């Protein structure tokens, strides 16, 4: 916008910049003070009155959580044969859902770490719950590899280098063990980052809580934080360092996840585009989930002053960019299937586009390549109910992407005699919807029990925080 202005007229440039600023919504509603942001956010946690909608939402989530429990019990007593995957489709819902959940987690780290390093102030009011979303999504993701072993209590020496009496060690030349290290490191570092961010806010809740019980619990968790300048200095140092460490980490996690496929020799998986394409898809789906959670949350708790249209717009734009990278990935896959001149690669692609799963392939293209073009329009970016629906669609689209990559590459392999169809069973769906229940139940508990927006970082964006500059 600014480059269109005539630089010889500084007055017109300044007024045009002002006009642009006036059109851009702020990161916080005007009129807030240190006290008002503190009270507004802390009151969601400290109030005795839980909104009725919370109970309703939690009940629904809890029901699906119980379905998850039922599925796990059935799985442990019967075995993984209750799932629909069988040779040639040896991997199906377990890895589809694993990749889907891990990908969703990535937006949380992007917001909390990468946007922090780029000094994007608008991240401040969405980083806390996006980080919580990361933790819960990774927890849901981890259930699948753990349970697909069938006997998770033995997974200790299958997955981890644990000195057991059989002297068996994991095979470090396999991407699957890289995955174990990547995901456990990711969970641990995300947890540390999240908890570090919470410490000053827990101290706020400790000091604001009325009941002795709440004061004690928050007091223990706050570790005696008192806001000392010496503490803040070290705190800021490690907060930035953790952000700097999380940035390559988050890129590595989905890269390693894509290695699970790319390192194999299977047409449809063996592609060098996979790491960047997976990382972009992860951020894309993650922002869709942040949007899916943020839109109802800001309405339910009246947080429109903190999660403003600026946040909604920016998230939409990031989804547009990453979605187009993903769409480029689809084009690239199709191009190289043709350009390789390899019979199996070509067949894999034409089977994807015209085979028995073609409906899902074209649904995925319609959502991830065509539908997201709507985000170009300001009218769409301003339409909250529509954005909610679109963000749900993106979640569906990214799930379909993993389904297509995994199932269509496997179900018609090199030997036509072993071709087969994959159909998920009700236990597959039970486990999948069950993890959605787990995710939502954890999220409902989180928004009620902990500050869903970082209070101390919100204090830094209110006007009062600016030091007066006149000298005495």
């Amino acid at each position, binding site marked *: 916008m600014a480059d269109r202005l005539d630089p010889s007229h500084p007055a017109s440039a300044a007024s045009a910049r002002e006009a642009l600023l006036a059109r851009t919504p702020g990161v916080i509603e005007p009129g807030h003070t240190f006290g008002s942001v503190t009270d507004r956010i802390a009151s969601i946690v400290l109030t005795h009155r839980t909104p009725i909608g919370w109970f309703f939402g939690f009940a629904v989530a809890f029901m699906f959580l119980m379905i998850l429990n039922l599925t796990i019990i059935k799985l442990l007593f019967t075995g993984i044969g209750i799932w629909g995957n069988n040779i040639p489709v040896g991997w199906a819902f377990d890895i589809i859902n694993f990749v889907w959940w891990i990908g969703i987690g990535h937006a949380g780290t992007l917001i909390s770490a990468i946007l922090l390093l780029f000094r994007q102030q608008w991240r401040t009011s969405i980083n806390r719950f996006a980080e919580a979303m990361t933790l819960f999504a990774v927890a849901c993701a981890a259930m699948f590899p753990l349970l697909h072993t069938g006997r998770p209590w033995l997974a200790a020496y299958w997955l981890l280098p644990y000195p057991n009496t059989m002297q068996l*060690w994991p*095979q470090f030349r396999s991407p699957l063990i890289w995955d174990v290290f990547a995901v456990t490191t990711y969970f641990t570092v995300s947890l540390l*980052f999240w908890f570090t961010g919470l410490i000053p806010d827990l101290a706020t809740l400790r000091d604001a809580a009325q009941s002795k019980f709440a004061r004690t619990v928050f007091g223990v968790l706050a570790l005696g934080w008192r806001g000392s300048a010496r503490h803040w200095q070290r705190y800021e140092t490690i907060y930035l360092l953790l952000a700097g460490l999380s940035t390559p980490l988050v890129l590595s996690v989905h890269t390693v996840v894509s290695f699970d496929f790319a390192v194999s020799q299977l047409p449809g998986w063996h592609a060098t585009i996979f790491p960047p394409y997976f990382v972009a898809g992860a951020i894309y789906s993650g922002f869709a989930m942040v949007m899916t959670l943020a839109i109802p949350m800001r309405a339910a708790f009246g947080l429109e002053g903190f999660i403003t249209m600026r946040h909604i717009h920016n998230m939409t734009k990031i989804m547009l960019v990453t979605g187009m990278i993903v769409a480029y990935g689809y084009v690239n896959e199709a191009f190289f299937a043709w350009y390789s001149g390899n019979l199996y690669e070509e067949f894999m692609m034409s089977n994807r586009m015209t085979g028995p799963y073609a409906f899902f392939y074209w649904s995925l293209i319609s959502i991830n390549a065509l539908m997201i073009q709507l985000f170009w329009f300001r009218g769409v970016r301003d339409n909250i109910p529509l954005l909610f629906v679109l963000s749900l669609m993106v979640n569906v689209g990214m799930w379909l992407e993993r389904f297509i990559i995994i199932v269509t590459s496997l179900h018609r392999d090199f030997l036509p005699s072993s071709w087969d169809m994959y159909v998920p069973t009700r236990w597959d769906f039970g486990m999948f919807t069950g993890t959605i229940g787990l995710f939502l139940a954890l999220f409902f508990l989180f928004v009620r029990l902990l500050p869903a927006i970082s209070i101390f970082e919100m204090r830094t964006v209110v006007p009062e925080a600016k030091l007066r500059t006149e000298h005495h």
Partner: protein
Amino acid sequence: MSHGPNTTEALYGLMAEFDNPTDLVEAANRARLEGYTAMDAYSPYPIEELNDALGLRRGSLPLIVLLGGVLGGLGGYALEFWTQVIQWPMNIGGRPFHSWPHFIPVTFECTILGASLAAFVGMLALNRLPMPYHPVFNVEAFSRASRDRFFLCIEAVDPKFDRHATQSFLKGLRPVGASDVAP
């Protein structure tokens, strides 16, 4: 709290309360120029200018984090080398036992893990947290240090600390409140 003339031993320090960050930074600057060293400022969010105002030096945390990362990375690689080359060598598709490119992802993850754990534990340890009790919490107004108030505390251990002189110095900073901090 009642104070006789000889209660200096029973005092952690003297505290001034401000209602905006600018006054706190200025107060800290003045106190440093006055020659006070054993003091601390408390604020509800990090204020970069306080580091200079209090004369805080950059600590050793970055070095600790670097060390944690190096140890983590070396540890990860050593684990892979020992299990795959020495303890239980296996021929996987004719690759050398020490097929180092395969060992990079785990080494990388362990580097990040080591550095992050060092950052978190290092920050808590250098800040002496968790600390269940601290004298500043004896000041009733201090509960607003986590909300919207700013505090400067000059501690009794300061060589320049004198109950009356320090008190009048703090009063001269035009705080919105001043209190004694019981130990």
